[in-house]
């Protein structure tokens, strides 16, 4: 059977690339020549395989004689798996173009290239396998493969103590999450009599057990996806990994968690309850606004992007929460709309966040700078990276006609359908979530104006940044691919939604009949009278505006019809401006920090260090703002304290006296005997 073989090859190719990479320490050229090309081929095959299943709407279950003797591996490629398979494949392809140029800086470093290549292969293979796994055993195996291999990637530059700490935190939280997922599968397997997904789907669950399973699923998958307050590993782990790995982790691995959640709740548990949706909606709204506010406060570029991932995961889960509410209250059409909105944002976020991380990687490699407050003027030095990064910024700020806007628009449209609900509470809660989403979008725009304005515009603030130059061709190509995808998925939402119809049909048996009823030009999710958006026409409009610019610049100006002269910037007549007079990232976000100050009590911490000279004037003044994550104080510290207190109690029985231990053994034996008889 060809699909079976193709899938096996797709899963094995990344492993093979990992094995080849083991030799890369001695022959670094292998990375360029074989390791990344193998990954790229695997990515393309995943796109092909997933795209086929997505467009054809077919689902095929494959059984491989591997794994436990009584439980062979079940792998299944259905439209939902296909969607995520294609998504992972596409980003992996872009990363495999970007990678060879990027890892060049590690060739002469202290860390081993072999380790990087080996675990990257395992990581990609694990992610691809998670989305096709069709029984709990292979799912958990793939999930652990993904988590553990990514731990080694996070801890790759382990000479830095902070990186080791981030790696440990990541490992700890990933394992706690995995345990919860395992328990969730345990509930389903217990009722469904079997570990295959088919058996779990058929499990007759009582509402209470279904709710328990759902809660376990939210906790486990939410920990991987980064729902607040379970997100704490994310801003620590994503920035310290090499940038192409950060792109994979933020762009794709979080989506694998979203996949797991959709599979677990919409497919395996099945009948969703509206109350779950409300809980999810509340968590997701908090996640979205929390993520963006913290992103705004960061000035480390990669850390900022990681917090922004938290925000976007919040937006995805807002869509999922709305979808559950509408499915649970008997509005399958609107539920489908919410699901499509969530899937669309999954797609958008995978594309633009990978793009932004790759851009950050290019900047990092060329300027050796992660701090926004030290960058500036990079557009002049890295024009192509600057252009692609701009595309990413526009997309993530949800501006038309790019893809981030489409998904937020769809989420808004779902939220606006509340008048059809009967419960007054629901009708009041959902618009509030929509208001939070609006706030999030506006803050995200401010955040990315800050990023682009301080990193790429203005003047260089340090010498290293001033001397940086454009990234290599492969690195640009990887970014260009993602930027193009951002644009296309923004301009042709109707085509993407048509393709997603198979996902929702196979998952819930519902489609959006009206969404593309008026042709590819018009997106009308519910009906043409309710809401319509024509992204292609908007794009043409903006293209005309740029055409006007081109005419003025390339025809009228050379002909002397219009005149442009260059001069100094306005300096109030005081003298030359220096790069240090520019607004920095910290000063840009100062008004927002002040307005939202009550949200992080004692967290925004200004520090002044003025050494006064012989006169009374300050000779040196330092201003530093530290924004610690408030969840450490409110959530993690109490948990840790509770854990410590409990272990201290338990450790009392550890007296160190032999007689006591013998006594314990005796009592245990007695208990066992009593239990047996």
């Amino acid at each position, binding site marked *: 059977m060809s699909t079976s073989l193709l899938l096996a090859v797709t899963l094995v190719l990344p492993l093979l690339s990992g094995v080849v990479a083991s030799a890369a320490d001695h022959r670094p050229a292998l990375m360029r020549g074989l390791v990344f090309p193998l990954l790229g081929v695997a990515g393309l095959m995943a796109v092909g395989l997933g795209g086929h299943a997505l467009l054809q709407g077919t689902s095929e279950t494959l059984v491989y004689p591997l794994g436990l003797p009584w439980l062979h591996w079940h792998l299944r490629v259905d439209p939902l798996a296909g969607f995520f398979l294609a998504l992972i494949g596409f980003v992996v392809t872009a990363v495999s173009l970007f990678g060879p140029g990027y890892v060049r800086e590690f060739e002469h470093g202290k860390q081993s290239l072999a380790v990087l290549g080996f675990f990257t292969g395992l990581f990609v293979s694990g992610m691809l396998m998670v989305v096709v796994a069709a029984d709990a055993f292979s799912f958990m195996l793939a999930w652990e493969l993904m988590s553990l291999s990514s731990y080694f990637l996070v801890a790759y530059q382990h000479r830095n103590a902070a990186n080791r700490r981030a790696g440990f935190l990541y490992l700890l939280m990933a394992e706690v999450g995995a345990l919860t997922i395992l328990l969730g599968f345990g509930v389903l397997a217990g009722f469904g009599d079997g570990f295959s997904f088919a058996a779990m789907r058929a499990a007759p669950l009582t509402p209470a057990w279904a709710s328990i399973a759902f809660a376990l699923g939210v906790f486990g998958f939410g920990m991987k996806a980064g729902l607040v307050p379970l997100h704490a590993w994310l801003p620590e782990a994503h920035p310290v990994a090499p940038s192409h790995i950060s792109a994979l982790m933020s762009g794709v691995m979080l989506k694998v968690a979203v996949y797991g959640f959709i599979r677990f709740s919409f497919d395996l548990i099945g009948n969703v309850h509206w109350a779950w949706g409300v809980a999810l909606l509340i968590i997701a709204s908090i996640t979205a606004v929390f993520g963006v506010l913290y992103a705004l406060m960061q000035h480390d570029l990669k850390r900022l992007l990681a917090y922004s991932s938290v925000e976007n995961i919040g937006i995805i889960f807002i869509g999922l929460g709305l979808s559950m509410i509408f499915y649970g209250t008997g509005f399958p059409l609107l539920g489908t709309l919410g699901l499509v909105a969530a899937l669309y944002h999954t797609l958008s976020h995978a594309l633009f966040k990978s793009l932004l991380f790759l851009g950050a990687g290019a900047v990092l490699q060329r300027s050796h700078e992660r701090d926004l407050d030290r960058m500036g003027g990079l557009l002049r030095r890295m024009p192509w990276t600057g252009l692609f990064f701009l595309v990413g910024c526009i997309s993530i700020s949800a501006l038309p006609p790019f893809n981030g806007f489409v998904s937020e628009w769809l989420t808004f449209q779902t939220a606006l359908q509340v008048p059809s609900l009967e419960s007054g509470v629901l009708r009041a809660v959902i*618009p509030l979530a929509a208001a939070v989403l609006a706030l999030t979008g506006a803050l995200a725009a401010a955040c990315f*104006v800050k990023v682009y304005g301080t990193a790429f515009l*203005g003047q260089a603030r340090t010498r290293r940044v001033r001397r940086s130059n454009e990234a290599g061709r492969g690195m640009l190509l990887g970014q260009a691919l993602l930027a193009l995808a951002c644009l296309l998925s923004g301009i042709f939402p109707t085509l993407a939604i048509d393709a997603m119809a198979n996902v929702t049909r196979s998952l819930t048996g519902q489609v959006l009949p009206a969404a593309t009823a008026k042709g590819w030009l018009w997106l009308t999710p519910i009906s043409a*009278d309710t809401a319509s958006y024509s992204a292609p026409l908007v794009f043409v409009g903006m293209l005309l505006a740029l055409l006007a610019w081109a005419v003025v610049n390339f025809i009228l100006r050379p002909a002397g019809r219009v005149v442009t002269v*260059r001069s100094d910037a306005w300096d109030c007549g005081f003298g030359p401006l220096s790069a240090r007079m520019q607004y920095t990232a910290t000063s840009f976000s100062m008004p927002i920090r002040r307005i939202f100050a009550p949200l992080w009590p004692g967290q925004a911490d200004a520090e002044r260090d003025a050494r006064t000279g012989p006169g009374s004037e300050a000779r040196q003044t330092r201003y530093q703002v530290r924004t610690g994550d408030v969840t450490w104080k409110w959530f993690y510290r109490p948990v840790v304290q509770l854990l410590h207190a409990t272990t201290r109690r338990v450790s009392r029985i550890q007296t160190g006296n032999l007689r006591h231990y013998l006594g314990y053994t005796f009592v245990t034996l007695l208990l066992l005997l009593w239990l047996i008889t």
Partner: protein
Amino acid sequence: MNDWLLALLGTLLFVALAPLFAAWVKRVKCWLQNRSSPALLQPYRDLRRLFSKQVVMAETASPLFVMTPYIIAGATLLAAAVVPFIAVNLPTAAIADVIVLAGFFSLARFFLALAGMDVGTAFGGMGSSREMTIAALAEPAMLVAVFTLAMVASSTNLSTVIDQILAQGLVLRPSLLFALLGLMLVGIAETGRIPVDNPATHLELTMIHEAMVLEYSGRHLALIEWAAQIKLLIYGVLIVNIFFPWGIATHNSVTALAIGAAVVFFKLMVLGALLAVGESVLAKMRLFRVPAFLVLALTLALIGLLSHIILEVG
């Protein structure tokens, strides 16, 4: 085809009239303040002068700086094209609903803020930072006000909303009243009018919008100013046509269009006079008072939304 032509003509008229509305507001303000006012055609003269002047650009300006005025003008023109001005049910209204309209404004603002940071002066960054801060609070307020409308009419398409409100006749809906108040406050903030920003200021430390465009000159400045005037008119038309849509042409006969034009002119004159009165009696706020102003707008809009959900549905 006829409809498309009409829509195009309507948009051109809209764009052409935008400076006139700004001039009208200024004239009423001058009357109120006992000053002699500039001619109503003065903004047109200013634009003509700016278009014919040479552009002086900072040495450090990047290509983004040059493209921004065109992008802003393009986004604002698209926004003007989708707002029902004299007639409803025009085909252009289907290109974008009211959420996309807010998206056009965001797009223009995003690029303007970037352009402010492009040259690398302190003023530009200051303006951008302030503008994005205000927008971060104003945009949710605007969207919530808009959501109220969308729920009242069960549609986000502006034409459908107006049709619905016309069809429901003159009923007093508390939700719409609150939404109107919220949208007016947002409009004042978004178009940079007193008490949030002062369009006439050139005192550097108080500037918001003007600080971002400080480095622009010539045709670039003309495009940006024109776009700002169009944006002001869009907010005006949104307010008068959604909340007081009576008189707007619902079919494309010449008499209906003529009546529609006359009525919308009258309504805009009244609204402009109101704006001028407001600007004359209020003083500009401190920057850190603005959040309270915008939170007021958001609260009003939310009250409107909730009162619709609680009082008017079901």
